[in-house]
Structures are given as structure tokens and as C-alpha cells.
């Protein structure tokens, strides 16, 4: 009995330590962000940062990048994952390995490769124009999101009997595009959404790609503010943390909704 009691005691110690370690930086950041006006707590730092036209511009830019990345990721991953499961099960290890590569190769190396491969004197001089660089950014972010997106969609597909669904749709005269858009996509929508929220959280504050490709994204803006201001960075950290929290919360929410709507016994 005393063994269990001491076990529980140490469990509480570990938990208390964890709560302390994770709560202090969050409290500290929030408290710091309120200190801009001398002698009183105020939301002055938030007012300044939210009113900064560069904040609005870079934030909107990164939101656009995130949305484009999600669209591109869905267009790339859903047909591929579907096709691999339906027709190319032997290719599965290859495709899965490729989707895991972005976790193995550091992002900074990938962007270094882009700069070398797509520079102005190359065959495909994407970095030569702002538009071309934006395309490169979306492709790069899609690569970063690939492991999460692919795993989410592939897990979503696992719960479906795609062979039967495909045959049923084909016998009714549906083409492959129709099948993907009207049958597969709605069925893995929840998986896509959970991948999409994670992608959004990753892209919105991404720094390395944007900084090295010289695009006006939110990540480099935050870094710039951090190098030059005192209290605004803390406000930015609070904002960024809220966005991450929101994305993860929404992700959990859709996953929970999925659990309610799916008949799990048949898995």
C-alpha cells in the first residue's frame, strides 16, 4: 500500500514539475507582453504590433501561403494515397519513405538546394521573380507538410473500403476524377482537415524558407521585431501560441467529430 502511495506521490511530483516548466514561460511571456507602459499593465504592445502595417501584410502573406500549401498538399496527397492503396500497394513503401524524407532532411538543406537549383542562371529560374519564388515557397511548404498530410490522409483511407467504393462508382459510370472529388474526398475530409490545421500551424510562423528565399512572411517579420524591440516580441509570441493552440484545438475537434460519425467496429 505504501508502495502505491509513494508511486502516486512521485507521479504528482513529475506532473507538478511539468506544469511548472510549461506554465512559467507562457505566464512569463504574457506578463512581459503587458509591461510596455511603465508602471502599469496594458495591452499597448498588442496595440502597437497589431497596428503595424508590416504585421498585417506579412501575416496575410503567410496565411495565403498556408492556404495555398494546404490546397496543393490535398491535390497532391489525396490522389496519390488513393491510387497507391487501390492499384499500387507494392509502391507503398517507396511513397511512404518519400513522404518521411522531409523529417530526415533538415529544412535548411532543402531550401539550400532550391537556391542552388532554381537560381537565375538555371533551367527553371524560379528565384528570379517574386512570383516564381512564391511558387517555390508553396512547393517547399508542401514538402514540409508532406509527412503529416500523407499520414493523415492515408490513415483516413484505411478506414474506407476504397476498392468497393471505386467499383460501385465506376459501375454507375463515374470517372476517376469524379470518384476522387465526390466519393474519396468527402470521406477523408476529416483527415484532410486535421492535416490542414497542422500544416497551417507549421507554415504560419515558418522562418527558414521565407528568410532564405527573401519573402515577406510572418516568420522573418517576427524575427525582425525580436531583434529590434523589447515588448512586442512577447506579444507576438502570445499571438503565435494562440494560433498554434487554435489549430491543434480544431484538429482535435474534427478528429473527435470523426470518431462520433464513424462506425469504428468495422475497422
Amino acid at each position: 500500500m505504501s508502495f502505491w502511495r509513494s508511486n502516486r506521490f512521485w507521479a504528482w511530483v513529475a506532473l507538478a514539475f511539468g506544469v511548472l516548466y510549461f506554465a512559467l514561460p507562457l505566464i512569463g511571456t504574457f506578463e512581459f507582453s503587458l509591461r510596455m507602459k511603465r508602471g502599469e499593465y496594458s495591452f499597448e504592445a498588442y496595440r502597437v504590433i497589431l497596428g503595424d502595417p508590416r504585421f498585417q501584410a506579412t501575416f496575410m502573406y503567410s496565411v495565403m501561403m498556408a492556404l495555398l500549401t494546404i490546397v496543393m498538399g490535398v491535390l497532391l496527397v489525396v490522389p496519390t494515397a488513393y491510387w497507391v492503396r487501390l492499384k499500387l500497394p507494392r509502391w507503398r513503401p517507396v511513397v511512404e519513405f518519400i513522404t518521411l524524407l522531409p523529417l530526415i532532411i533538415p529544412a535548411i538543406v532543402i531550401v539550400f538546394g532550391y537556391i542552388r537549383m532554381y537560381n537565375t542562371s538555371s533551367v527553371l529560374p524560379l528565384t528570379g521573380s517574386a512570383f516564381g519564388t512564391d511558387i517555390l515557397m508553396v512547393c517547399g511548404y508542401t514538402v514540409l507538410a508532406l509527412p503529416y498530410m500523407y499520414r493523415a490522409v492515408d490513415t483516413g483511407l484505411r478506414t474506407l473500403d476504397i476498392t468497393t467504393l471505386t467499383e460501385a462508382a465506376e459501375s454507375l459510370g463515374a470517372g476517376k476524377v469524379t470518384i476522387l472529388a465526390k466519393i474519396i474526398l468527402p470521406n477523408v475530409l476529416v483527415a484532410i482537415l486535421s492535416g490542414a490545421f497542422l500544416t497551417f500551424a507549421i507554415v504560419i510562423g515558418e522562418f527558414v524558407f521565407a528568410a532564405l528565399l527573401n519573402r515577406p512572411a510572418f516568420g522573418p517579420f517576427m524575427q525582425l521585431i525580436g531583434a529590434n524591440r523589447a515588448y512586442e516580441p512577447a506579444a507576438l509570441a502570445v499571438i503565435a501560441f494562440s494560433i498554434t493552440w487554435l489549430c491543434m484545438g480544431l484538429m482535435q475537434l474534427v478528429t473527435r467529430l470523426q470518431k462520433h460519425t464513424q462506425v469504428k467496429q468495422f475497422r
Partner: protein
Amino acid sequence: MSASSEPINNTLFTASKPSRSFAWLGILPFLIFALLFLILPTLNIVIGAFQNPAGQFTLENIQKLFQESILASYWISIKISVASALLGCLIGFAIAAAIVLGGLPAWVRSPIMTFSGVASNFAGVPLAFAFLATLGRLGLVTVLLRDWFGINIYAYGFNILSFWGLTLTYLFFQIPLMILIITPALDGLKREWREAAAILGANGFQYWTMVALPILWPALLGTFALLFANAFGAVATAYALTGSSLSIVPIVLFAQIRGDVLQDPHLGYALAFGMIVVTIIANTIYLWMRARSERWVKS
């Protein structure tokens, strides 16, 4: 994979089906994308590492990696990655064990797992700001320790822009990642094993060292390797926190890409190549160990 039940259909995909060998065309867009934006750019760097400016094959760049300043960069990078991975594993394990085995109330688990999901993705520039605001010279904890307890951590040589500062910051995403990965493994420890060990006369310590840890060992080592790679490749947090004052490999590479600080582009490629080698080793250990640990967790 039924081949017979397909009706005659005019679309490109089904038309190619009877011959079967064209089915791979369906993943061609994906393969081209991966080739253009993942594999070729990486190969480009790797090849560059083995070329001289004239484009001929050479090992000179790799040899240059072994000069003192670059070795020092790798060494401090590896030290920070090992320290943050090791502490992340230990603390994450302790918290996960507290949740799964420690007899804490059941409602504790869900918020911790949710928070771990958030915190493991909260890296980069804002994380650096959070720790500056907490443990910087004017940070909340620094000030509270000074005013309440009379402890000036900066007088004791602590600096957020240092090895321990960076390690402490990295732990904010390392610990949650460990919790997320190891909790399912701990769930996989069967109650029967503990009971069987107890019946055979093992005490708690013996159960852990002779039953639980040997089972968990691959998962622990694998996660350690993953956390290591995670810290080793991180750029944004370190850059926003320390600028270029701490010359870890990703920071040196970042500066090199921006302005050729090494004054040798091909040495830059070699530096990046070295990073790939380190993360490949770490991830190989991770994947290998994960495959081994799944044998136990699955059943």
C-alpha cells in the same frame, strides 16, 4: 484488387488498366513533385559537396570540414542536441509514466496530451521570444528569483544565449514530443506482465529493470534519436534566440547561405552534407528501433 469487375470506361486511367504496367502513371505527379522539390535539391547539395568550383570530383570539401572551427560547430550542435534529447526523454518519460502508471486522476491525461500536441509544434521564433521573456535578463523568472529569493541567476553565469539556455528552450518542444510518442508504448505494457513478475517474486525495481525497460528500450532509444534529429536541424529558435552568437551548425549554414561567410560555397555544401549524414544516422536508428518496438506495442 479485383481486376475483372471493372466496366468498360473511357477515362484515361481505366483504359490503361488492362495492361497493368501503366498504373504507376497515377502517382507520376507525386513522383515528379518529390523529385523536383525534395530529392533533386538535396542531391544537388550532396553532389556539390563532392565537387570543386570547376565541377570536378573532389574530397577536399569534406576534408575541410575537419578544420577546428567547423568541428567545434558540429560538436556544440551535437552536445545541445544530445542534452536536449536526453533530458527531453527523461522528463517526458517521467511525466508519461506519471500519467499512465502513477495513479493520477484520469482527467489529467487528456489535457496533457492536447497540450503536448500544441507545445511540440510550438517551435521557432515565438518560442525564442517566450524564453527571452521568461529567462532573459528582465524575464519574469529571472526577476522573481532575484527579488523574492535574492538569487541572480545571471550572476551565477547563466545566460539564455548559451548552451544551457538553448537546451532549456529546446526542451519546450522535446518533452511534449517524448510524451506523445512514449505514452502509447507505456500503455502497451500489459498488467499481466507486472502481475506475472510479482508472482515470481520480483519487486518494483526488478520488474522495471528486467521486464519493462527491456521492452521499452527500443522505443526509448528510437525516440531519443528522433529528438536528437529534431534539435539538430532546428534553425529558427536558435537564430531568434542567439542571433549568430552561438555558432551551431544550422546557424553557420544559415549565415553561409545568406552571405557566404565561409568564403567557399563548396564548403557550404559540405557543411549541409554533414548535417544530412548526422540526421540520417539518427533517423535510421529511430526507424529501426520503432520497427522493433512495434512488435511489443501492437499485440
